[in-house]
């Protein structure tokens, strides 16, 4: 059991203390986030809080730099072996936190562990056919088909030590009960976990033997999960913590005016959109229509699209902190379609005309499902959209619910229209096509989040071509074509890219990355 220490100093006292301590003194950095990482096992849960946190402790073969580009980490270089796969040349002289040396065998072991039945990250290795150790510092990942994106897709594949893991009986991640790796770590990363009290406090310290040079000057970092955003804000303002992510959008203007604090604003990778029940024969929640589904008609979908004033949503609900989206990925993603970056204009008159053309001049009611604790201001966005829909005769009956009920509801097709946010794990335009646009196919594990069963034969045909095409320009042309199809058919209504809003004391220098990972080694306490 851990004893919780916290200094209860006022802001002024804290500032005094910081100045007095000087640069060479210990720099304890305290930060807070909304969720505690569920586990310290890098292969057990594929969630942003876990992967983000563990990126400070474990490392992959490659890592993302401040601009999200892939750069060498445990692998010094990599190249394609013809069209069969990829060869990684590993870094020599790297040690794990417990002092044991890092070799190709650890990579092989980590691959076996991460692709096992019990792993939650095994989908990353679906394209992999086999892995072969060439020598201690060379390893080949052989893929079933040419895979230009493979190194990008394994940036969060973290390497564990074979001996440490097996001798502590944690050779496989555990689904049911904890094992040694659930609360203990042994990575090669810049920080080691020195104590962990799940849900309460986790402490880290820089790793002396790290192979790279540490940009950060912090000597100890303490993470506390604070679920209530208002409490987190108070903790920051009172000086008890140095950094928090995220803060509520509505509090940004005031926060900016305060002396001594900085708001870090950026654009996340997540695109917010509305989806439709494309295949249902009738609306499930309508009061006035039975036996028909107007959303099968592209004109009705377009009416819904043009009824939404995205600029007003961004301006009012998102407080001007979001960017409009024209497609399923944001402009920061690889494969973003510049050619298809135009949104349909907001035009309620055109929308009403489209409704009339489709035979719904008098409007109809339908069910709109929305989460209320998943995305930034999600319920408010749905309410505002519902009122915009109502103006063209689309009478949305809005149901907002917590996300734990939301996904089951969508999986059971209990919606006529729904809100969805999508952040591509690979930071590539192929990702949403695979999960959201391809016809659902559980055998091939495709279209698994395509709740509305959107289906287009050409899109299905293009996806495998995009996945295997090695030439950048040809690939981009294919993505452009797919994007155009999705736009023409209004498969979804992409609205905006969600912002990232962090706040810290102004003595803190940090780097905000698009994936919302908080990277400790880029933090400097002045």
């Amino acid at each position, binding site marked *: 059991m851990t004893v919780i220490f916290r200094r209860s100093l006022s802001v002024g006292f804290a500032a005094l203390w910081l100045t007095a301590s000087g640069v060479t003194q210990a720099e304890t950095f305290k930060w807070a986030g909304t969720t505690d990482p569920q586990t310290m096992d890098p292969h057990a849960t594929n969630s942003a809080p876990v992967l983000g946190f563990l990126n400070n402790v474990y490392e992959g073969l490659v890592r993302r730099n401040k601009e999200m580009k892939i750069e060498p980490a445990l692998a010094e270089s990599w190249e394609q072996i013809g069209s069969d796969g990829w060869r990684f040349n590993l870094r020599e002289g790297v040690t794990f936190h417990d002092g044991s040396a890092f070799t190709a065998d650890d990579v092989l072991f980590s691959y076996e562990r991460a692709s096992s039945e019990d792993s939650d990250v095994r989908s990353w290795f679906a394209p992999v056919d086999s892995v072969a150790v060439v020598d201690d510092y060379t390893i080949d990942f052989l893929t079933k088909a040419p895979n230009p994106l493979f190194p990008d897709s394994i940036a969060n594949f973290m390497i564990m030590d074979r001996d440490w893991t097996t001798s502590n009986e944690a050779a496989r991640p555990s689904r049911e009960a904890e094992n040694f790796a659930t609360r203990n770590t042994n990575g090669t990363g810049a920080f080691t976990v020195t104590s962990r009290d799940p849900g309460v406090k986790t402490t880290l310290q820089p790793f002396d033997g790290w192979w790279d040079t540490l940009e950060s000057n912090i000597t100890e970092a303490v993470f506390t999960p604070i679920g209530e955003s*208002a409490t987190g*804000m108070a903790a920051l303002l009172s000086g008890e913590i140095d950094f928090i992510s995220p803060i*509520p959008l*509505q*509090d940004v*203007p*005031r926060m900016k005016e305060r002396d001594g604090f900085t708001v870090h604003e950026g654009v996340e990778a997540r695109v917010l959109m509305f989806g439709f029940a494309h295949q249902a024969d009738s609306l*499930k*929640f309508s*009061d006035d229509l039975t036996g028909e589904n107007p959303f099968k008609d592209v004109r009705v979908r377009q009416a819904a699209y043009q009824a939404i*004033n995205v600029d*007003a*949503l961004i301006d*009012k*609900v998102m407080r001007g902190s979001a960017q409009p989206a024209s497609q399923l990925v944001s402009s920061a993603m690889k494969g973003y379609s510049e050619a298809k970056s135009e949104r349909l204009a907001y035009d309620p008159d055109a929308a009403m005309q489209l409704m009339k053309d489709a035979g719904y001049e008098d409007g109809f009611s339908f069910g709109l499902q*929305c989460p*209320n604790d998943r995305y930034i201001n999600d*319920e*408010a966005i*749905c*309410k*505002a959209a*519902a*009122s*915009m829909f*109502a*103006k063209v005769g689309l*009478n*949305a*009956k*809005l*149901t*907002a*619910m*917590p996300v734990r*009920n939301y996904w089951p509801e969508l999986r059971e097709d*209990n919606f006529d229209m729904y809100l969805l946010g999508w952040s591509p794990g690979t930071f590539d335009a192929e990702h949403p096509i695979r999960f959201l646009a391809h016809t659902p196919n559980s055998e091939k594990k495709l279209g698994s989040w395509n709740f509305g069963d959107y289906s287009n034969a050409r899109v299905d045909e293009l996806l495998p071509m995009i996945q295997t095409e090695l030439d950048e320009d040809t690939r981009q042309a294919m993505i452009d074509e797919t994007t155009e199809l999705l736009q023409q058919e209004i498969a979804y209504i992409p609205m905006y890219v969600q912002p990232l809003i962090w706040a810290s004391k102004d003595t803190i220098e940090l780097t905000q990355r698009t994936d919302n990972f908080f990277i400790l080694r880029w933090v400097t306490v002045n």
Partner: protein
Amino acid sequence: MINAWLRWSRENELAYLFFRNPVAIVAAIIAILCIGGAVLSPWLAATDPYDIASLDIMDSLIPPAWSESGDARFFIGTDDQGRDLLSAILYGTRLSLLVGFLAITFASVLGVTVGLMAGYFGGRFDAIMMRIADIQLSLPAILTALLVDGIAKGLLPRGQHDNLMIVVLTVAIGLSLWVNFARTVRATTFVERNKEYVQSCEIMGMHPFRIMFTHILPNIMGPILVILTVDLAVAVLLEATLSFLGVGVPANQPSLGTLIRIGTEYMFSGEWWIVIFPSAMLILMIISINVLGDFLRDALNPRMR
């Protein structure tokens, strides 16, 4: 025998006491204004906040009319959806009062009946009812509401569920509040039961239920009224919590509690009116109802004179 109940109906006496009590008069005026405003909201309110087609997001977060960037159309400003806050409060109060009153009526009828019987009969009935109360207390209101809602969803066709949400909410909130009544009434009944007046009724061969409801009940109205009036606020706020769980009123028809819940998101953003006005409405209402409750208890209590 039915003296106690006769006193309830002696309006002239009640009126006499009432007009001698200025605090009660003020409270009554406020309560009538609040409740009247809520009941008559469709006629009083400038706009219909539930008509979502009339809302314009560009009108959102406008401060009250008297402040610099205010708008004469919205006297106390607008909320995050561009609703006229005054209209939203009137409509929301109506919804909240409906749910709140129904729920505490349900809770008090159930709780008082159970408490009286448990305290009067004691023995096995008491043991069973109090263990059921234990079970109820162990389940947080959130879970009770999810259970009731889940059963309602299971039993009713999808379209029907929305229309019956008031019933679902009433039952859910009522179930989580009845135990307070039951346990307090039971404890006081224990004491009353052994007093002379009850024993003389028993000797006269009076039916136990008649003793309970016509003799014991008027003597224990004090604590019941306290819980009744205090729990009204709790019921209104509970309803708001439940709507966050997706169990409450439809998202586009905010209740007073929901307005407060949404307002709390704007506590520190400078848009103070979104949280202050709905909260003030609830506070005013609760205080006036409590003052009236105290007055009624004193006026109606047979022993108070």
